[in-house]
C-alpha cells in the first residue's frame, strides 16, 4: 500500500512538472523576447568584465578574457532557469485566499509548486538557456566542463541550484501570511540574490569580507556553483564539495519552507464560503 502511494505521488509530481513546462512554452513570442533581452544584457555584462580585465592588464581572481566571457554566457543561459528575476505567484495566492485551495489538495503545496517550478526551469533551459549559450559560443567563445564526468555532475548542480532557488523563493513568498504587502521583501530578496549569486560580477571577484558574507548565504550555490562546473573552472576534485554544500542548502531551504507553510496555515483566515 505504502509503495503504491509513493508511486502515485511521483506520478502526480511528473504531471505537474510537465504542466509547468507546457505553461511557459505557450508564450512563444515571450520566450523569443526573453532571448533578445538575455543577449543584450549578456553583451553589456561581457563588455564591463572585459573592460575591467583590459584595465587590470592581467587575470582577475583567475579569470582570463576567455573565462570571463564563458562566465557571462553560461550565466545568461542559467539566469532564467534558476529564477533570479523574482516570482510572486504564491504570494498572490496567499493574498487572494486561493492558497486555501492549495491546502485542500492531497499533495503538499511546497511539493506541488516545486514540480511546476522544475518544469518551468526545464523549458527555460531549453528555450532560453541553450540559445543564449549558443550565441555566446558562436560570437565570443564559451568553455566547456572538464570532461564528461564533470559535465554530468554539472547537470546535477544546475538541478540543485534550481531547487535551492525555488526553496528560497517559496519561503519569501510565504511572508505574505504575515505582511499585507510583501513587495519590499520580494525586492530586497531579488536584489540580494542577484548580487550575491554572482549575476553581475563573479563571486570570486568579491573582496574577502564580502566573499565570506556571500558564502554564508545560499545564493552562490544557486548560480556561481553550477557555472564554475559548466565553464570548466572547477574540476572533478572540486565537484563533490560543491555538490555537498548545494545539497545542504537545498535541504535547509526546503525545510524552512515546510516550517513556514505549517505556521502560515495556522494564521490563514479566508473569508466567505
Amino acid at each position: 500500500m505504502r509503495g503504491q502511494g509513493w508511486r502515485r505521488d511521483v506520478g502526480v509530481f511528473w504531471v505537474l512538472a510537465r504542466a509547468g513546462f507546457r505553461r511557459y512554452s505557450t508564450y512563444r513570442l515571450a520566450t523569443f523576447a526573453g532571448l533578445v533581452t538575455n543577449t543584450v544584457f549578456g553583451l553589456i555584462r561581457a563588455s564591463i568584465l572585459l573592460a575591467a580585465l583590459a584595465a587590470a592588464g592581467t587575470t582577475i581572481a583567475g579569470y582570463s578574457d576567455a573565462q570571463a566571457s564563458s562566465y557571462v554566457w553560461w550565466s545568461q543561459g542559467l539566469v532564467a532557469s534558476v529564477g533570479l528575476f523574482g516570482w510572486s505567484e504564491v504570494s498572490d495566492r496567499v493574498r487572494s485566499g486561493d492558497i486555501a485551495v492549495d491546502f485542500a489538495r492531497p499533495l503538499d503545496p511546497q511539493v506541488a509548486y516545486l514540480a511546476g517550478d522544475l518544469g518551468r526551469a526545464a523549458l527555460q533551459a531549453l528555450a532560453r538557456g541553450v540559445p543564449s549559450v549558443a550565441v555566446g559560443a558562436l560570437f565570443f567563445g564559451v568553455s566547456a566542463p572538464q570532461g564528461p564526468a564533470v559535465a554530468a555532475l554539472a547537470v546535477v548542480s544546475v538541478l540543485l541550484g534550481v531547487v535551492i532557488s525555488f526553496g528560497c523563493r517559496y519561503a519569501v513568498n510565504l511572508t505574505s501570511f504575515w505582511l499585507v504587502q510583501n513587495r519590499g521583501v520580494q525586492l530586497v530578496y531579488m536584489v540580494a540574490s542577484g548580487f550575491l549569486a554572482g549575476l553581475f560580477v563573479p563571486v570570486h571577484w568579491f573582496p574577502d569580507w564580502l566573499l565570506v558574507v556571500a558564502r554564508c548565504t545560499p545564493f552562490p550555490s544557486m548560480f556561481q556553483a553550477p557555472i564554475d562546473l559548466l565553464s570548466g573552472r572547477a574540476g572533478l576534485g572540486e565537484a563533490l564539495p560543491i555538490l555537498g554544500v548545494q545539497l545542504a542548502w537545498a535541504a535547509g531551504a526546503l525545510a524552512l519552507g515546510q516550517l513556514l507553510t505549517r505556521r502560515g496555515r495556522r494564521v490563514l483566515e479566508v473569508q466567505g464560503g
Partner: protein
Amino acid sequence: MADLRTDLHAYRTLLTARVRAQTAYRVSFATDVLGTLLVGLTELAEVYVIFHNVPRLGGLTFAEALMLFALANISYSLADMLVGHLDTLPAFIRAGTVDAFYLRPLPLLAQLITSDISLRRFGRLGVGLVTFGIALRINEIGWSGRNVVVVGLAVLSGTAIVAALFVCASALQFFLVDASELTNGLVYGGAYASQNSTQVFPNPLRVLFTYVVPAAFVAYLPTVVLLDLPGATLLPAWLGWCSPLAAAVAWGVALLLWRAGTRHYQGAGG
C-alpha cells in the same frame, strides 16, 4: 487659465490620495522604501567590487565613477517615480479596462502618467543623492555657475531620457501584449548601460547606446563635461552639452510611438 488651475487641482487631489494610500500600511511602506534603498546600495556595491580589482574602468577612476553612478541613479529614480507605473498598461490592455481611459477628456498618456506617483522610489533616490554629495567632495567640484548648469541639465535631460525609454516600452505594449521583454532588452538594457561608462563598450555597442538608444546622454556624457574629462572614440567631450537635444529627440520618438500604439489599439468589446 482657469482650466489649467482646475487640472492642477485635480492632479494634486489625485496624488494626495495616492500618497495616503501608499503610506497607509506603515510596515509595508517602510519595507518598500527599504527595498529600493537596497537596490541602490547593491548597485553601488557592484561598482565598488569592480573597482576593488582595477584602478580604472572605462576611463574613469572610482571617484569619477561615483559621480556617474550618482547622476545615473538620480535620473533613473526620478523617471521611475514619475512614469514607472506605465508598466501596468499591459494589465489594463489585457483586462480591457483601457477603453475607459479613451472616453475621458484627457490624452491617454497624460492620464496614465498622472494616475500615480511611486513614493517608494525615494529609497533609491536617497542613495543617488548621498552618493552625489560624496562624489562632489572627492572630485573637488565647486558650485560654480557652469557646474550648476551642467548638473541641472544632466538631471533634467537624464530623467527625461529614461522617462522617454519607459514611454517607448509602454507604447510597444499595444503591439506586443505578452512580449514585454522584447522591449525590456533595449529599455532596461539601455537603463543598465546608462549606469556604466560608455567607454567600456566596443565601437558597435558605443554607437547603439549613444546614437540609437541615448543611454550615454543620461549620465556618462554629463559626467565627462562636469569633471572636464577627455573624450573618447565616437564620444567627443562636447557631446555632453547635447543631452537636452537627445532628450527632445527621445521624447519625439516616444510620442510618435505612443500615438501609433493608441491608434493601433482596438477595444476588447463588452
